[in-house]
């Protein structure tokens, strides 16, 4: 159970999600990484370059400072780690389940939140944008790929999500191992 809790710290070492934009002029793609606490790119200027491209279609600039989740999500995760460690010492099976369910709800909420931001960026377009195509929205997919004008946007979980999955697996394992101990 402690392992399950500690795994969550991995979220501070690797991004959760990766959005890749592909176009002929970008042979190596343009990669944006979404962390629990920040948004980065392949180079320090990637975000600026994405914003330059996006301004033609009137998309709002992506400014990590304006996304409050990036500020409070880290505290939620640390809270979960501490809670998990605490629960581990209680050795109470029901609490393990409780923790696991919270983690899953948080994960689902996180993905929903991610979707909402994507929806907002994709739909909330400036009426004075240079390129306006009737009916076109630029919401990247949460999972999978989609053509957004000349760019193919590919959105997939990144290594950080693996820690989340590992955490859940360890949670279930600790539950089942304890189950065996408990039966004896």
């Amino acid at each position, binding site marked *: 159970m402690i392992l399950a809790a500690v795994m969550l710290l991995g979220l501070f070492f690797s991004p959760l999600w990766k959005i890749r934009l592909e176009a002929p002029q970008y042979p190596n793609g343009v990669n944006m990484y979404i962390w629990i606490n920040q948004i980065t790119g392949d*180079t*320090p*200027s990637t975000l*600026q*370059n994405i914003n*330059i491209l996006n301004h*033609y279609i009137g998309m709002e600039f992506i400014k990590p400072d304006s996304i409050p989740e990036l500020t409070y999500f880290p505290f939620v995760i640390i809270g979960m780690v501490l809670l998990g460690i605490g629960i581990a010492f209680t050795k109470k099976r029901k609490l393990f389940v409780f923790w696991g369910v919270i983690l899953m709800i948080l994960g689902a909420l996180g993905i929903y939140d991610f979707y909402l931001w994507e929806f907002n960026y994709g739909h909330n377009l400036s009426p004075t944008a*240079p*390129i306006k195509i009737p009916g076109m929205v630029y919401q990247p997919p949460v999972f999978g790929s989609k053509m957004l004008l000349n760019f193919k946007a590919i959105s997939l979980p990144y290594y950080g999500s693996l820690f989340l999955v590992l955490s859940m697996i360890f949670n279930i394992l600790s539950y089942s191992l304890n189950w065996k101990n408990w039966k004896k």
Partner: protein
Amino acid sequence: MNKYYFKRIAFLFVVAFVFTACQSGSNKQSKGAFGDSDVASKVYVPPGQYDEFYAFFSGGFSGQVSVYGLPSGRLLKVIPVFSVDPEKAYGFNEETKPMLNTSFGFIPWDDSHHPELSQTDGVPDGRWLFINGNNTPRIARIDLKTFETVEILEIPNSSGNHSSPFITENSEYLVAGTRFSVPIPQKDVALKSYKENFKGALSYIKVGKDGEMSIAFQILVPGYDYDLAHSGKGKSHGWTFFTSYNTEESNTLLEIGASQKDKDYIAAVNWKKAEEYLAAGRFKTFPANYAHNTYSDATHSAKSEMLKEVKVLIPEECPGLIYYLPTPKSPHGVDVDPSGEYICGNGKLSSDITVHSFTKMLQAIKDDNFDDEVDGIPIINYEAVHAGSVKSSGLGPLHTEFDGRGNAYTSFFISSEVVKWKLGTWEVLDRVPVYYSIGHLMIPGGDSKKPFGKYLVALNKITKDRYLPTGPELCQAAQLFDISGDKMKLLLDFPTIGEPHYAQAIPAEIIKNNSVKYYKLTDNKHPYHISSEDEAKVTREGDNVHIYISSIRSHFAPDNIEGVKVGDKVYFHLTNLEQDWDVPHGLGVMGAKNSEILVMPGQTETLLWKPQRPGVFPFYCTDFCSALHQEMQGYVRVSPKDSKVPIKWSVGDFEE
């Protein structure tokens, strides 16, 4: 009568037949394939793939360096060095004007001859490329991280910097021998007083850790024409060899006057000895006046400094510093083989290549085997230093390079061919015609300790019928040969810019990963740079108007400027805020008397514009940067000199 008539017709037929036979023969040869059907695939680099070598060609009278890929012969870039270039604003923007400063003031042109790659342990290392300016004696350094000229040093007491830069094996020194001897220091004398007043100077330019150049010392030598040079390597490291002609010391009609003696000299300079004399204080300090110009990637600007003296060594006072090796027939190129043992003198008026032995030279010096002495310089006995000659190999040998497998390749200008011969046995192994009149030839690393071999490039002065005609002025050209086998094989012809005087080539692997993609905006130290659009502004100081302007796809900030007056000096300090690869922005202003500017991402450049009449004048981005490039424009309102219109600027101000 009839019989005679018949004979004449028959004769004409024979002549015509021989003529057509020759024609078709030469045509077949000039196509170069020799029936080898895979020649095309040897030079074919598929779209999107890279060439194996970078090749740096001097532009001769264009004053520039052009960069080609080998084996494709594709032109990659023209680097402005000694000549102004409106395309890149080199010599036109305020930042690079100091690069072309000399003791004569701003000189917008030179004649660039010999590119030379920096070396470590005798092998090209890909840090810098040096090149000489022949006309107003200078040496330039190009940084191979940015492919930009970053330093130019003027050479005092020199005139016609031809035997230059020819680096030493650990890039300790570059050399600069004077082609034209002149009075040193300069003075107003009768030209007939040549023998009495004219002197030559051989300069050694120290290359610092970061590539920075300074004149370490000059050697004052007899007033000959010092033509070419090469520094020793391996066992001959520590020596430099300079060819000379006009040892007759003629001041007129040199084609006759300088061609009378059977032998001229190769000057062998022991520069390690020179260092000892220098350290011992055995030099004279001569007053001088020469420019040292440096460009900084941090300020994106150049500065020019005038230096006032130079250390001079006099051979008479420094025994053992310099010797003369007699070499037949006005030797042109002097080339040292990869082992450092053989010194090849290419006697340009003869059919032979004379090769001296370094080991024999040291022995002769030890034995005092001298024939004569001139101004304190011993002339070594020819037989004592001569290793062998390549006999009747062609006519007019100019330059020799090596493949690292014991073979040498010499260009012959008069007989227009390349001859391959064997070091040590001096036998001719192969010969191929070149089209036409070859000067230098180049093998990648072919003048170094470890030639990369594989290809040979002939650098030809004359093309005549090789390409579609373009009026009286035709291109000069390069020809690529495969030298991996026993016989040289012609693979490709390609035209070049200006005169491809000499070239150097290096495996692309050594350079390409160091290539800078863009300048970091956070590192920009230009005094007029801005870091974001919020900092854009226009200020007035008397008649000087400074516009701190930025560019980013697809607009300038500011793009509306008012309050400029006739007679002002308007400085557009354009910072390109982009931080991505290959997104330059340009700026052109109507009526500007210099050029556009072309600004790389993260860089700041300045265009000076002097408005001449009231009105509204547009400026725009000159480099097709984006989908809305054509929208990337702005206006400057110019008011009469006595107007009261205040300075005002804006961008995106849609409402009144």
